[in-house]
């Protein structure tokens, strides 16, 4: 306490030292006067009295010094002095300071942005839950080893039999329509098991969460809801009386029992949900038949579990796998070969994290690379300056300054530059973050990617700043501290001769910079190339001139029949609209962001091998779907309106070529029978293969079944309109048609199909765009570094060059000498860079976009990792930059007037 108080006074002393010094001078003066008075009284002469008083005091200056050291903090005082000195140096070389600070700002800004995204998407545990590190994801595993969500009955078995888990909850993200009929609003929320909040350990901000009475499995028994803090504030002005009131969700009244705390956004990272409703309300709210809750194949629940204290994830996983194995045998008809596993939440393949993990990691790597280049650049600039200041340092050493103090000074300057760069970079982060957000796919969910600066991020950035300071400052600082006063002072001011060792150092720095730039460039080029290749892949259908709108009719309280009726009427309305050529609707949208569904099939006269995955992806479509998307029927016929739900209509399906290849060895598919949805379907046609989940995927067996025969309550409804011109132009007609059929149905987010399927390219697009930008930056920075070193070296050699020219060397030979030197440097860097780039490329090639069942093995840059052309191009490009960077100083060197050069010192 006493120490702290004293420290506080000393810190204040740093600021107020002027006033304090005056005060102390007065005190010292009065002290001397009193002493002199006494001495005079004891009979000394005036001179002697003064002399004795001074001797007894021990010197005025010494006393002042001792006093000042106690009044302030001498160490800090030194640092402040260094900082003031540094500022003065920066003001004297504003160009130097600006280049260093700006490049650092760029390096730190992009790294901070990348990290803040990684932090939000991958690192930060769920907010508002207790002990997030004990939470794990529970995934079912298909016979093929892919991860898929769980069914409700499977969940019940897991919940009732597992001992090592403290609790298991399931959730299904869903769109709700909240509010009165005509001004209903779409709200994203989760349908959750009743124990959801208990398992997650979320405490209510107000009211209560679901109580144990609401944990049950009785459909329709729990008309309650919890709303988010955000929604509570924005829609109810934070009125506490809302608890206990009812809100209208999907045309049904639910009682709000509580408000979730502000930090809690639901169970998927980076996505903000606003409403939580017990899953057992699903039949009421969405018209899903209660039998579907009992269907083990209805795998659409994400599972989250909490480990019992003292249980490791491995133990719990073993127990789970054993149980899942028994369940797979007991329910062999639907679950044969299935298993289940636990994952850390950060490995969950659902939601943004699954898609963004790969690109973000790559991005972070390149950002660090870029920061490395920046640091090397700044170190170079500082070194160049250290050379200029050699004489200053030698003089100071000669006058008795200690070396530590010189090192400290250079480090302080370096710190000031990095700190300024960091502040600028952090200031730019929210802006950069928004830029990144603009690259996000057209929003279907609201992402909560923070543009705010989380403490994690600030710690990371502060760490970066310190690292950058050391990286950029340590070499120049040590070099300055090593200054040998003898040689420097006696070298008579010829700075050229002494700089050899230092020149080698700078050359090494530049070579490493070129190496880093090559790595960045190659990585960027690989991803850009793979993006380009992927985006050139023909999706197998024609997405141009198609308007897509997804309806959430269940949210409007539609029954299954009403929904089918709505589709038929809307299709009829739109078909008669001028400019519209085709109309169709389906359950899933190809190449979208939303999950795709599959069905367990049995194929007539086909015996699956043991453990063979018979889960085949499917779409439920209207007859107009394939013609609208211009997917050709290669054999048989298309679906027709006659393939309907009437009892005497046979069940039919269309399969794709890959399906025929796999199950019928490519022969005679028409008329074959396939069993799914509890019935036998007859194959009536074969459609050409197209892309279903990712453009990069290899051919996938796929099937189409008629909307009227298979459409079920939990399916989505995507509505397509093909137009002659701009698809957005028919939007007013679409809205009007919808209003005529039902004024309560809202057209929420219509989008041209072309843009919508861009979502499937999002991870690659993001990685490619960002890396291209960063790669360009890296090359630019390396070029600047190379240029500055060459320019410096030429400036140092002005005299030498002058002598050479005086002795008869011509312009061309001087030019080539300097350029050759630059190229040698670059060559060393390039050689090292190629080795590094090969390693980095292998790392990138191993990054796959997602590990969920769809699009397994689709890679960011799989095919191009070993493309020699890219390496060659990068090398040539960097060499060209190197030639340019050394040519400019070379030209200056060659235009040196020998007389001028010799006289210049």
């Amino acid at each position: 306490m006493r120490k702290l108080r004293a420290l506080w006074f000393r810190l204040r002393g740093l600021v107020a030292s002027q006033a304090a010094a005056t005060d102390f001078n007065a005190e010292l003066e009065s002290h001397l006067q009193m002493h002199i008075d006494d001495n005079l009284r004891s009979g000394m002469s005036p001179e002697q009295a003064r002399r004795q008083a001074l001797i007894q005091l021990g010197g005025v200056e010494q006393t002042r010094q001792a006093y000042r050291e106690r009044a302030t903090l001498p160490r800090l005082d030194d640092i402040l002095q260094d900082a003031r000195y540094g500022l003065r140096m920066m003001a004297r070389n504003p160009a130097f300071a600006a280049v260093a600070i700006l490049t650092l700002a760029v390096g730190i800004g992009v790294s901070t942005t990348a990290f803040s995204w990684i932090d939000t998407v991958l690192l930060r545990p769920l907010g508002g839950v207790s002990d997030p590190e004990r939470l794990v994801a529970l995934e079912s595993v298909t016979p093929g080893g892919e991860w898929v969500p769980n069914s409700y009955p499977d969940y019940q078995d897991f919940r009732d039999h597992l001992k090592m888990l403290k609790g298991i909850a399931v959730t299904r993200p869903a769109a709700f329509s909240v509010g009165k009929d005509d001004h209903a609003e779409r709200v994203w929320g989760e349908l959750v098991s009743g124990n959801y909040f208990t398992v997650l350990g979320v405490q209510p901000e107000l009211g209560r969460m679901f109580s144990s009475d609401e944990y049950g499995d009785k459909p329709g028994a729990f008309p309650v809801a919890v709303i988010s803090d955000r929604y509570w504030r924005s829609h109810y002005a934070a009125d506490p009386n809302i608890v206990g009131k009812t809100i209208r969700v999907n045309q049904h009244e639910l009682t709000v029992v509580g408000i979730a705390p502000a930090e809690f956004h639901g169970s998927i990272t980076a996505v903000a949900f606003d409403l939580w409703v017990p899953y057992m309300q699903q039949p009421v709210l969405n018209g899903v038949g209660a039998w579907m809750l009992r269907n083990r194949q209805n795998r659409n629940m994400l599972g989250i579990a909490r480990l019992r204290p003292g249980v490791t994830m491995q133990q719990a996983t073993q127990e789970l796998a054993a149980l899942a194995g028994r369940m797979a045998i007991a329910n062999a008809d639907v679950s044969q070969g299935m298993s289940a596993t636990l994952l850390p939440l950060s490995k969950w393949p659902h939601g943004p994290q699954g898609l963004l993990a790969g690109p973000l990691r790559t991005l972070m790597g390149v950002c660090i690379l870029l920061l490395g280049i920046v640091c090397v650049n700044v170190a170079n600039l500082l070194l160049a300056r250290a050379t200029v200041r050699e004489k200053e340092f030698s003089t100071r050493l000669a006058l008795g300054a200690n070396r530590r103090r010189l090192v400290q000074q250079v480090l302080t300057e370096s710190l000031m530059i990095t700190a300024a760069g960091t502040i600028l970079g952090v200031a730019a982060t929210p802006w950069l973050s928004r830029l990144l957000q603009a690259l996000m796919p057209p929003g279907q969910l609201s992402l909560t990617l923070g543009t705010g600066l989380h403490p994690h991020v600030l710690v990371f950035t502060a760490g970066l700043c310190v690292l950058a300071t050391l990286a950029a400052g340590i070499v120049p600082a040590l070099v300055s501290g090593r200054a040998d006063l003898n040689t420097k002072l006696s070298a008579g001011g010829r700075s050229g001769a002494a700089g050899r060792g230092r020149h080698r150092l700078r050359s090494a720095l530049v070579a490493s910079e070129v190496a880093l730039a090559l790595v960045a460039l190659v990585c960027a080029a690989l991803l850009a190339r793979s993006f380009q290749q992927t985006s050139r892949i023909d999706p197998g259908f024609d997405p141009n001139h198609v308007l897509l709108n997804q309806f959430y009719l269940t949210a409007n309280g539609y029954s299954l029949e009403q929904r089918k009726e709505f589709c038929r009427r809307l299709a009829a309305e739109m078909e008669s609209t001028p400019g519209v050529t085709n109309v169709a609707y389906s359950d899933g949208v190809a190449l979208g962001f939303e999950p795709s569904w599959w069905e367990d099939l049995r194929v007539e006269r086909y015996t699956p091998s043991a453990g063979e995955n018979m889960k085949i992806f499917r779409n439920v479509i209207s007859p107009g779907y394939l013609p609208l998307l211009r997917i050709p029927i290669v054999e048989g016929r298309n679906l027709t309106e006659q393939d309907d739900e009437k009892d005497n209509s046979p069940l039919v399906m269309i399969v794709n070529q890959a399906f025929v290849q796999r199950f019928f060895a490519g022969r005679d598919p028409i008329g074959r029978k396939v069993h799914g949805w509890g019935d036998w379907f007859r194959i009536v046609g074969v459609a050409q293969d197209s892309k279903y989940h990712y453009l990069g995927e290899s051919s996938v067996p796929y099937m189409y079944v008629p909307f009227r025969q298979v459409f079920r309550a939990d399916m989505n409804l995507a509505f397509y309109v093909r137009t002659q011109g701009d698809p957005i132009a028919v939007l007013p007609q679409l809205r009007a048609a919808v209003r005529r059929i039902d004024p309560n149905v809202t057209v929420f987010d219509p989008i041209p199909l072309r843009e919508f399927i861009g979502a499937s390219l999002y991870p690659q697009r993001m990685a490619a765009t960002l890396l291209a930008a960063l790669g360009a930056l890296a090359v630019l920075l390396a070029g600047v570094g190379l240029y500055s070193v060459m320019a410096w070296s030429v400036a140092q050699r002005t005299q030498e060059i002058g002598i050479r020219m005086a002795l008869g060397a011509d312009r061309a030979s001087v030019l080539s000498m300097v350029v050759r030197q630059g190229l040698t440097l670059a060559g060393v860097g390039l050689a090292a860079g190629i080795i590094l780039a090969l390693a980095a490329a292998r790392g990138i090639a191993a990054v796959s976009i997602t590990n969920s069942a769809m699009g397994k093995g689709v890679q960011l840059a799989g095919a191009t990792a070993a493309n020699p052309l890219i390496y060659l191009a990068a090398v040539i490009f960097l060499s060209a930059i190197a030639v340019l960077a050394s040519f400019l100083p070379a030209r200056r060197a060659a235009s040196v007037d020998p007389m001028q050069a010799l006289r210049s010192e």
Partner: protein
Amino acid sequence: MSDKPDVWQGTLALMVLKTLETMGPQHGYGIARRIEQTSGNLLSLNYGTLYPALLKLEQEGAIVSEWGTSDNNRRAKFYRLTRVGRKQLEREARNWEQATAILARFLSPAEEA
């Protein structure tokens, strides 16, 4: 002067506090003279070293200072003991007595041998 022992590290503060306790508010010069006299002129004290020590005590809150007028009408800065200072004095005096007592036992001729 060189044959007189210097003021031991850390004891100066104690002497200052004790002086202020006996004499009441006093200026730096007065404190210095008093310490010298009390030591029977056996200590060599550079008066200058007193001021950083006073400053330290003030920073720690053991004393406070105030400008005033000396006996022979000079303006001088007077230091006064605070409650914190009194406690510190008590504590340090006790410690010091203990330490000297222990040392004294070591140094005194062994009685029982």
